[in-house]
């Protein structure tokens, strides 16, 4: 199949479905077709992603295409340079079809918080696609792209992958460059791929991974190729009681599918090991303090002065700041900036931000202890199936609680992969989360592949 044929197929799907789904904020029709034609005419050896149409979450810079991060604040902003991950996709031969919708600045779990309208779940358009990389997940689930880039701060790749029946990887913190990625919470943000299969995720991941001189937090740790496996003899899979049997508010159907997933892996030779992650219940609080504290500083640059939206004729400098930000930033973003500002304030920093940092270390230690007895962990990605649009949007706390299983690995900087493991009685997809040791994406992907194929066999 030619690059042009693949690209035309995706653009056709976008034309057919995106008015309803709202997955894209920008469709790069002409650029994508020109790029595909150039790739088809190319005589040099094809790159590892030759001719594959990929969608990019709109908080990642593609030079010459608008970059909004889902915020009206950045409407009309054109970035001067490609993000490192985008440059790597292009060098590998990918075709970039467009920029996908997201909760504003990545702050949300449903993609209902975009400044440009919500994205709907292609599997059931009454429901949310998850978030914040909901546009990326919907794009892949509706065949509008072969794969997509997302970003994950507390679950924003894994949960939409689970909600849309896809595989999605959040790499180890530092594994993938953040250069050119609009920061939400710098110590947590990671870029990763979403695709239909774990193997496709691995193919994109191999292109993205590796140190970048433009990102001081990117790690110079060798990227090991994935050894694909058939049996899992000798592999120890940990199951945290806090993520399964003792998890509060876990949908029984999801509990059942995760149990089935464990059985499938056991049948292929893996040993199941019970473990405990005792600080799990503090994860949400720690996450929402650390992430909002960092965000409160990261978003200060959106002040209406150099780029982005500026209020009309402010009488004073203070009015310029407060009105520009008040007008252009959404409620959830303002809420998180206020939370984070408070958490860092004199007199409160120790009780909130610094305490959250201490809890974060405890959570990381929980995982380190678990690695003594297991090679990776398995549990649910989300406690519930995709909900209806509007169902939780008025209750921020209920929304935050949906991140219960995904924030732990984020706080600990660990790689985590969501793998589709079937559907519930309403045919809504269910995702299993695999959590790995630092920089051991290879094991995660190999086991995720076995798991996904086990369920494909089962479904057939």
């Amino acid at each position, binding site marked *: 199949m030619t690059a042009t044929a693949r690209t035309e197929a995706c653009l056709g799907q976008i034309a057919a479905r995106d008015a309803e789904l709202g997955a894209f904020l920008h469709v790069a029709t002409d650029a994508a077709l020109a790029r595909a034609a150039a790739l088809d005419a190319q005589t040099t050896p094809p790159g590892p992603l030759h001719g594959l149409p990929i969608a990019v979450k709109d908080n990642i810079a593609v030079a010459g295409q608008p970059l909004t*991060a889902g915020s009206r604040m950045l409407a009309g902003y054109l970035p001067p*340079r490609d993000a490192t991950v985008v440059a790597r996709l292009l060098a590998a031969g990918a075709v970039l079809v467009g920029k996908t919708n997201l909760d504003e600045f990545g702050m949300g779990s449903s993609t209902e918080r975009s400044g440009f309208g919500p994205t709907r779940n292609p599997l059931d358009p009454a429901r949310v696609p998850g978030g914040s990389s909901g546009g990326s997940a919907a794009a892949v689930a509706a065949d509008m792209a072969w794969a997509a880039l997302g970003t994950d701060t507390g679950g924003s790749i894994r949960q939409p992958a689970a909600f849309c029946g896809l595989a999605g990887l959040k790499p180890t913190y530092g594994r993938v460059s953040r*250069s050119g990625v609009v920061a939400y*919470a710098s110590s947590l943000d990671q870029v990763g791929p979403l695709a239909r299969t774990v193997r496709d995720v691995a193919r994109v991941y191999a292109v993205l991974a590796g140190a970048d001189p433009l990102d001081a937090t990117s790690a110079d740790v060798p990227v090991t190729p994935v050894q694909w496996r058939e049996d899992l003899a000798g592999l120890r899979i940990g199951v945290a009681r806090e993520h399964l049997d003792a998890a509060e508010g876990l949908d029984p159907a999801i509990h059942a599918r995760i149990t089935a997933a464990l059985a499938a892996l056991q049948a292929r030779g893996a040993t199941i090991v019970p473990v405990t992650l005792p600080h799990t219940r503090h994860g949400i609080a720690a996450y929402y303090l650390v992430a909002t504290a960092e965000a409160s500083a990261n978003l*200060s640059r959106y002040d209406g002065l*150099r780029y982005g939206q500026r209020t009309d004729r402010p009488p004073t400098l203070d009015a310029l700041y407060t009105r520009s930000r008040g007008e252009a930033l959404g409620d959830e973003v303002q809420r998180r900036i206020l939370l984070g500002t408070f958490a*860092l*304030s004199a007199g409160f920093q120790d009780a909130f931000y610094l305490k959250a940092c201490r809890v974060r270390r405890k959570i990381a230690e929980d995982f380190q202890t678990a690695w003594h007895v297991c090679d990776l962990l398995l549990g649910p990605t989300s406690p519930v199936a995709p909900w209806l649009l509007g169902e939780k949007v008025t209750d921020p706390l209920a929304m935050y609680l949906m991140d219960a299983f995904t924030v732990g690995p984020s706080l600990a900087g660990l790689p985590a992969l969501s793998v589709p493991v079937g559907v519930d009685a309403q045919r809504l997809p269910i995702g299993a989360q695999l959590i790995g040791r630092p920089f051991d994406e290879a094991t995660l992907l190999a086991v995720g592949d076995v798991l996904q194929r086990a369920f494909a066999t089962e479904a057939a």
Partner: protein
Amino acid sequence: MTSFEAVIGLEVHAQLLTASKIFCSCAVSVGGEPNTRTCPVCLGLPGALPVLNAEVVRLAVRAGLGTGCAIQPTSVFARKNYFYPDLPKGYQITQAELPICLDGQLTLDDGKVARIQRIHLEEDAGKSIHGDSGTRVDLNRAGTPLVEIVGHPDLRSADEAVAYLRELRGILVTLGVCDGNMEEGSLRCDANVSVRPLGQDAFGTRVEIKNMNSFRSVRDAIGYEIDRQVGLIADGARVVQETRLWNMDLARTESMRSKEEAADYRYFPDPDLPPLHLDPAWLAAQRADLPELPAARKARYQQALALDARTAAWLVEEPARAVAFDQAVAEAPALAAPFAAFLMTQVQAQLQRSARPWPELAAAMPALLATCGKWRGGQLSNKMLTELLQAAFADPARTLADALAHAAAQAGAVVSDDGALEPVLDGVLAQFPAEVAKYQAGQRQLTGFFVGQVMRALGGKADAKAITALLARKLGG
């Protein structure tokens, strides 16, 4: 009436002499069209990340080693949050809790030790240019690397503060850390000033003074502020904790903002920059690489070259001057002390009246040393020397070295042989018989009188030593 004591601590910002900015590869430079020396990082564009310039670390470590600080094996960058138009990210990257250097000290000329609390790295902000049509922002300076050197409140007078600043500047310039230019703002000084009754341990209320851009401003502003605070207390009023700006034109400090309006900067570690770890072997190499510092140089000048303290201090004050001096006298150590005095008096006097820049003077050091040698050897009279220097410094068409050679050729030679001097001296002795008699009666101080008369007769171009010797022979020495 109570006597008061001033308590002063300086915060000095020094711009590091690097080619590029602290967190991006933009060139550091003064001037340039506004906003042309910028990139996504120093403009704070979405997604741009800071990456630390290694040269910045090297220079900060040199500053720390030169001021006797403990270099910290691990230091951490933090974000200082505030909104201002010339601060593109809405926060400044600086070092807060864990700076790169701690606990140093400077020894002042009088032997007093003034302690340094810390030295930390940070990025400079841009410039707000206020004009009639509103305020414009130039971000060329944004991201320029700085060290902030925070002194303990160990200084007790405006003069001590100036001495501290001079000592610090000498070290930073000698180490190549900073060019030390206060007028252009590459070395900036803020002062915390308070007063207290003599004998009291507790500090008084502190006022921060900014906007002092010369040594003179530092001396005058601190002096003014001490008097102002003592005056307030004497009047029964109270000193308010605030920031004040030095107004050089009106020679007074003026209130800028009070502590009540002070911001909460919400410092926290910058998650974009990992902690800075210094390799012990690298650090040892830096320590071994330090040049002779001003204090050691001053001591050497006094001990090995027999310079007096004032001349030694003057030479060392401008490190480029001292380096050029050292090079010039390396071959002629016996001339070192007279040459230093020659530089500090005759040459300095010319320099103050001319537009010759220091680098040119440094290049002319060998020619100046030769001129000094001729003068000392009697081949140039005082008058000839003055005229020669004046001519050379005022010669715009030539470099100073060339101008000196040219002026020396023009000056011609002194009259020093007895055959030429004797008739002139004979004439003088015939003209002043009374003085001759006094001289012969023992008033040897009249030597100068006779030498001066001979000089005058020869238009200043005579060898004073030769005349003296001839006079002694003629009238009996």
